[in-house]
C-alpha cells in the first residue's frame, strides 16, 4: 500500500542513514572499524527513533499518519481480543442488517403511505352494527369483520354512495370501488388474464393521481352510455404491453368486449391496498360484471338493498374524521330502503384512517405496526446491550493500558482519540457488513415469505431504516467504546495500575446486569415469536370441518362469453355432469362462492323466535360431497329443487331446528332437508354459522370443486380438455388445490408470524453471542486467577463447574426476569386485542425458556471448556 505517510517514512530513513553513514565515514578515516564508527555515529547523532518521530510530527500528513497509527493499533487490539471483537461486529451486522431488512418489508406492506398528495386526508368509510341490518340489506359484496360484539363492514349501496357524495361536497370528496375480479384480456393478438377493479369516475382525481400517459378517469366516464375505457397500472403496462408509447388510445379486449385504453397510472402507485395486484381500472358502469346480463351487481345498481360498493373519502383540509362522520350520517340513513328494526340493527358509520391504503391486515391484528415496532425496539435494545457489555468487559483491561499510557506521557486528548478511532473502526466494519446483511436478507425474505409471489413487492433496502437502526447501534458502540478512556481521564491513573492478578468473585458489574437484561428481553421476544407462529399453525391446521385433501378448485365464467338463460343452465348441467364423469374425479360440485376466499353473503335465519346470523352458500347437489362436508342427517337437494335449505349442525342446534322444520330467510319459508357437519367456509378464522342453498343456474360464474382420487393437480390437463370440449372460449380461472387456497387466505397471518418468528431467532442469536462474548472474555482475563486456583489444588472439573455456574447464574436470573416480563406483556397484548385471551399457555413460555436456556448452555460451554484446559504453569508465568 502506498500511502503518503509511508513514502515519507522511507525517505526519512534514507536521509538519516545517509547522515549516519557519512559521519561514520569520518570516524572510519580516523582509524575506527566500520562497526565502531557506526556505533559512535549513532551515539553522537542522538536517538534515531525519537528524531524520526519529531520529523514525522513536522509533516503535513502527520494527523493522517496518527490516525493510521490509531487504526493500526486499534486493529491490533481487536485481534488481541478476538471473541469480543467478532461478537461485537456480528452484533452490529445482524442487529442493524436484519432489523433494517424487516423494517423495509414491514414498511412496504404496512407503513408506507399511498404515493398520492396529502395521503393523511384519506379515510375509509365503514359501517358497524350489533345485529344484521335486517330489511336494509339483502346481499352484499365486500368484507366484514368483527370488533368485539360489533360487526364492521365496508360495503354500501350505490344509492348510499350517491347520497353521501352529493351531501358532503365542499367537506370531502367520496369515491367508490368494487372488489377485484379476474378477467381475460386480449391485446394485439396476445391473450392473458388480469385483475380488474371497477371504480367510480372520480376515483383517481380523489386520490390526486396524475397520469403517466394519456388520461385517467373522469366523472363523465360514469355515465351509463359512456364509451368503455380502461386505465392500466404502470406495472401491467410495462410488463404486458412492453411499455408501448402508443398504448393510450388503442383498443384492448376485456372479457370479449372492446375497451379503449385511456391512460397509464404513475409507476409509484401500485394500488389502494398494500401489496395488492390490480392491473386494470374500469368505470363501474362499463365493468364486465355490470355489463353482464342478469348479473347480481347489475341488479345492485338500482337496488338499495344490495350493498356492493366500497368507499374512500378525501377530507378537505381542516375537516376532521368526526366532522365527516357527522355530515355523512343523515345522507346515509336517507339511502336505506326501510326503517331499521331496532337500535341494534341500525348501521352506524365509522371513519377509518386510510393514508396507508385500505387493508384487512390492521383489522385482523389490531395494530401490527406497533407490535412490530415494539419487537424491533427490543431487538435493537438487545443489540445495544450486547455491544455495551462486550466493550465494557474489555474496558477493564483497557483502563489499565490507558493508565499506563497516560503515565508514560500520552496526552489525554490523544488517548481519547485512540479509543474513538477504535470504536469507529469497530462500528465501520459492523456497519459495512450490515449493509450486506440487509440487502441479502431483503432479497431472501421475499422468496421465503409464503405466498409472496401473489404480492407485488420490490423491497429495496430502505435507507431511512438503515440510517435509523445504524445510528442507534453505532452510537452505542461509540459511547461504550470511549468509556475506558473517559474513566481514566476522570479517575486518574493510580487505581488502575495497582491491580495485578485479581482473585475476582462474580460481581454484579454493569456488564453482567446487561447480559441479564438481555436474556430477559430474549425470553420476551422468543415467547412472542412462538405465540404468533403457533397461532398461525393453529389457524392453518385447524379442523375446518371438511376434508381438505384431494380437492381441486377453479372458476368458470360462462356469462362472460355470452351464455344466458337456457344456454347457461344447460352449460352448468353439462359441466357438472362431464366433470363428475372424468376418471380420477370422485365428485364434482359447483358453488356460487369460492370457499376460503373470505367472501360470501350474509343473512339471518329465523325459526320461530330463534334467530341467527348466517353465511349463505349456494351449491349444486354434489357440492357438499365434493367439498367433503358429510351430512349428519337428511339429504341434499334434488336437481332444480327450490324452497329447501341445509343447516350446519351448530346452527341447527342453536335454532332448535330439525329435519322438516320450516325456517324463514329473506322473507321466504324454507324447509330444512338436511343437517351438515359443522364446517368453516369463507375463512379459517371466524367460525361461521353456515346454511347451504341450491345453486341457481342463472349464475354467470361459479367455482367448480372436484374431489379427486389422485393428487388434484395431476388432473388439471384432463379438466382443461373436458371444459374445452364444452366451449373452447371459456378459460379455467384461479386453479388451486384446497390446501393452496387455505394458505392463500392466511397469507397476511403468515407474513406476520414469519416476521415475529425471525425476530425471535435474531434475539436468540444475539443473546447467545452476547453471553459467549462476555464469558469467553472474562475467562480469558481470569486465566491467571484460574492458574493460581489450579496450582493451589483446584481440579479441572471444579474450575469448569465454576465458570459454568457463573454463566448459568446470569442466564437463570435473566430468564426469571424475562418470565415476569412475558406475563406482563401477554396481559398487555390481550388487553390490546393483539391476542385472543389465553393465547399464551404456560408451555409456550417453557418452550421459550428451554430454547434460550439451551443456547445459553451452549454459549457458556465453550469458555468453560477453555477455562478447564488452562495450564497452571503457563498461566502463572503470563500473569
Amino acid at each position, binding site marked *: 500500500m502506498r500511502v503518503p505517510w509511508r513514502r515519507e517514512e522511507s525517505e526519512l530513513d534514507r*536521509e538519516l542513514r*545517509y*547522515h549516519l553513514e*557519512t559521519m561514520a565515514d569520518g570516524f572510519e578515516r580516523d582509524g575506527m572499524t566500520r562497526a565502531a564508527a557506526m556505533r559512535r555515529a549513532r551515539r553522537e547523532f542522538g536517538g534515531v527513533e525519537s*528524531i524520526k518521530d519529531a520529523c514525522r510530527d*513536522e509533516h503535513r500528513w502527520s494527523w493522517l499518519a496518527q490516525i493510521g497509527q490509531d487504526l493500526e493499533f486499534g486493529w491490533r487490539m481487536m485481534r488481541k481480543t478476538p471473541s469480543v471483537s467478532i461478537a461485537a461486529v456480528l452484533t452490529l451486522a445482524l442487529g442493524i442488517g436484519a432489523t433494517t431488512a424487516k423494517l423495509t418489508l414491514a414498511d412496504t406492506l404496512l407503513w408506507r403511505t399511498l404515493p398520492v398528495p396529502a395521503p393523511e386526508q384519506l379515510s375509509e368509510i365503514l359501517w358497524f352494527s350489533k345485529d344484521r341490518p335486517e330489511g336494509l340489506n339483502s346481499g352484499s359484496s365486500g368484507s366484514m369483520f368483527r370488533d368485539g360484539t360489533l360487526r364492521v363492514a365496508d360495503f354500501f349501496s350505490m344509492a348510499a354512495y350517491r347520497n353521501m357524495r352529493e351531501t358532503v361536497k365542499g367537506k370531502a370528496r367520496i369515491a367508490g370501488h368494487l372488489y377485484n375480479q379476474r378477467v381475460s384480456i386480449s391485446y394485439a393478438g396476445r391473450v392473458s388474464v388480469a385483475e380488474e377493479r371497477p371504480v367510480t369516475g372520480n376515483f383517481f382525481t380523489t386520490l390526486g393521481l396524475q397520469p403517466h400517459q394519456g388520461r385517467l378517469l373522469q366523472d363523465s366516464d360514469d355515465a351509463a352510455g359512456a364509451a368503455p375505457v380502461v386505465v392500466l397500472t404502470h406495472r401491467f403496462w410495462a410488463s404486458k404491453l412492453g411499455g408501448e408509447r402508443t398504448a393510450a388510445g388503442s383498443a384492448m379486449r376485456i372479457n370479449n368486449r372492446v375497451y379503449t385504453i385511456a391512460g397509464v397510472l404513475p409507476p409509484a402507485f401500485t394500488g389502494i391496498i398494500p401489496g395488492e395486484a390490480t392491473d386494470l381500472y374500469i368505470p363501474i358502469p362499463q365493468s364486465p360484471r355490470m355489463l353482464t346480463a342478469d348479473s347480481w351487481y347489475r341488479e345492485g345498481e338500482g337496488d338499495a338493498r344490495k350493498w356492493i360498493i366500497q368507499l374512500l373519502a378525501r377530507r378537505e383540509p381542516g375537516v376532521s374524521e368526526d366532522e365527516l362522520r357527522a355530515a355523512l350520517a343523515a345522507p346515509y340513513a336517507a339511502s336505506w330502503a326501510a326503517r331499521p328494526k331496532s337500535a341494534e340493527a341500525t348501521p352506524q358509520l365509522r371513519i377509518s384512517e386510510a393514508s396507508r391504503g385500505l387493508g384487512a391486515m390492521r383489522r385482523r391484528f389490531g395494530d401490527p405496526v406497533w407490535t412490530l415496532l415494539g419487537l424491533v425496539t427490543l431487538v435493537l435494545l438487545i443489540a445495544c446491550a450486547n455491544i455495551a457489555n462486550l466493550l465494557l468487559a474489555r474496558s477493564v483491561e483497557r483502563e489499565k493500558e490507558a493508565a499506563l499510557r497516560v503515565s508514560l506521557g500520552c496526552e489525554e486528548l490523544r488517548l481519547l482519540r485512540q479509543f474513538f478511532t477504535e470504536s469507529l473502526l469497530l462500528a465501520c466494519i459492523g456497519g459495512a457488513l450490515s449493509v450486506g446483511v440487509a440487502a441479502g436478507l431483503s432479497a431472501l425474505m421475499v422468496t421465503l415469505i409464503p405466498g409472496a409471489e401473489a404480492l407485488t413487492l420490490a423491497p429495496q433496502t430502505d435507507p431511512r431504516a438503515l440510517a435509523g437502526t445504524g445510528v442507534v447501534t453505532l452510537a452505542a458502540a461509540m459511547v461504550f467504546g470511549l468509556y475506558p478512556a473517559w474513566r481514566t481521564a476522570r479517575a486518574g491513573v493510580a487505581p488502575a495500575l495497582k491491580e495485578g492478578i485479581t482473585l475476582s468473585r462474580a460481581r454484579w458489574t454493569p456488564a453482567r446486569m446487561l447480559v441479564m437484561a438481555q436474556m430477559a428481553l430474549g425470553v420476551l421476544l422468543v415467547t412472542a415469536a412462538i405465540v404468533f407462529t403457533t397461532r398461525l399453525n393453529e389457524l392453518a391446521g385447524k379442523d375446518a370441518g371438511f376434508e381438505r385433501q384431494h380437492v381441486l378448485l377453479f372458476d368458470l365464467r360462462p356469462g362472460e362469453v355470452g351464455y344466458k338463460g337456457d344456454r347457461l343452465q344447460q352449460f352448468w348441467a353439462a359441466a357438472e355432469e362431464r366433470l363428475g364423469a372424468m376418471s380420477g374425479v370422485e365428485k364434482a360440485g359447483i358453488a356460487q362462492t369460492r370457499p376460503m376466499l373470505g367472501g360470501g353473503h350474509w343473512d339471518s335465519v329465523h325459526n320461530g323466535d330463534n334467530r341467527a346470523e348466517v353465511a349463505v352458500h349456494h351449491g349444486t347437489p354434489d357440492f357438499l360431497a365434493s367439498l367433503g362436508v358429510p351430512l349428519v342427517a337428511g339429504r341434499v337437494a334434488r336437481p332444480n329443487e327450490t324452497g329447501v335449505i341445509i343447516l350446519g349442525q351448530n346452527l341447527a342446534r342453536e335454532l332448535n331446528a330439525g329435519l322438516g322444520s320450516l325456517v324463514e330467510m329473506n322473507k321466504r319459508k324454507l324447509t330444512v332437508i338436511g343437517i351438515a357437519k359443522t364446517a368453516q367456509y369463507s375463512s379459517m378464522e371466524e367460525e361461521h354459522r353456515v346454511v347451504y342453498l341450491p345453486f341457481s343456474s342463472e349464475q354467470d360464474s361459479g367455482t367448480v370443486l372436484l374431489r379427486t382420487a389422485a393428487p388434484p393437480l395431476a388432473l388439471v390437463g384432463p379438466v382443461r380438455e373436458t371444459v374445452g370440449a364444452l366451449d373452447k372460449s371459456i378459460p379455467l380461472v384461479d386453479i388451486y388445490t384446497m390446501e393452496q387456497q387455505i394458505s392463500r387466505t392466511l397469507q397476511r397471518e403468515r407474513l406476520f408470524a414469519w416476521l415475529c418468528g425471525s425476530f425471535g431467532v435474531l434475539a436468540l442469536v444475539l443473546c447467545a453471542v452476547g453471553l459467549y462474548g462476555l464469558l469467553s472474555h472474562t475467562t480469558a482475563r481470569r486465566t491467571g486467577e484460574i492458574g493460581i486456583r489450579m496450582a493451589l489444588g483446584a481440579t479441572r472439573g471444579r474450575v469448569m463447574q465454576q465458570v459454568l455456574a457463573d454463566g448459568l447464574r446470569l442466564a437463570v436470573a435473566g430468564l426469571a426476569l424475562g418470565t415476569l416480563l412475558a406475563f406482563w406483556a401477554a396481559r398487555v397484548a390481550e388487553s390490546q386485542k393483539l391476542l385472543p385471551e389465553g393465547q399464551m399457555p404456560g408451555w409456550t413460555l417453557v418452550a421459550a425458556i428451554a430454547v434460550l436456556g439451551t443456547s445459553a448452555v451452549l454459549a457458556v460451554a465453550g469458555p468453560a471448556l477453555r477455562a478447564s484446559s488452562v495450564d497452571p504453569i503457563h498461566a502463572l508465568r503470563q500473569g
Partner: protein
Amino acid sequence: MGKKSDLVQGTLDLLVLKTLALQPAHGYAIAQRILASSRQVLDVQQGSLYPALHRLERKGLVTSEWREGENGRMAKVYSLTKPGARQLREEMDEWSRYIAAIQWVLEA
C-alpha cells in the same frame, strides 16, 4: 577545541536558513558548516537538524531533491526558496534588533 555552546532557543531555523543561503547542502554538510563558521563554538546536535529541516520544508522556506553525494550515495540536498530568502532577511533583522536590545540592557 574551545568551549561549546548550546543554541539559544529558536535560532536553529535561522542558522539553517543562513547556511543554505550560501549554497544548497544536505543535513550532514549543514551541521558541519554551522560548526565551522561558528568557529567550533555552536555544536548543533546533529539529529535535531532534521525536524527543523522538515519543518522549514513544510513551510515552503526550503526545498529538497535527491542528489548524488560526494561519497557516491544519494543524499537529500536542501536549498533555499524565494520565501525562504525573504524569511531569512526578516529573521536576521529581528535577530540584530534582539542582540542590540540585549546589549543595551547589559550595558545599562
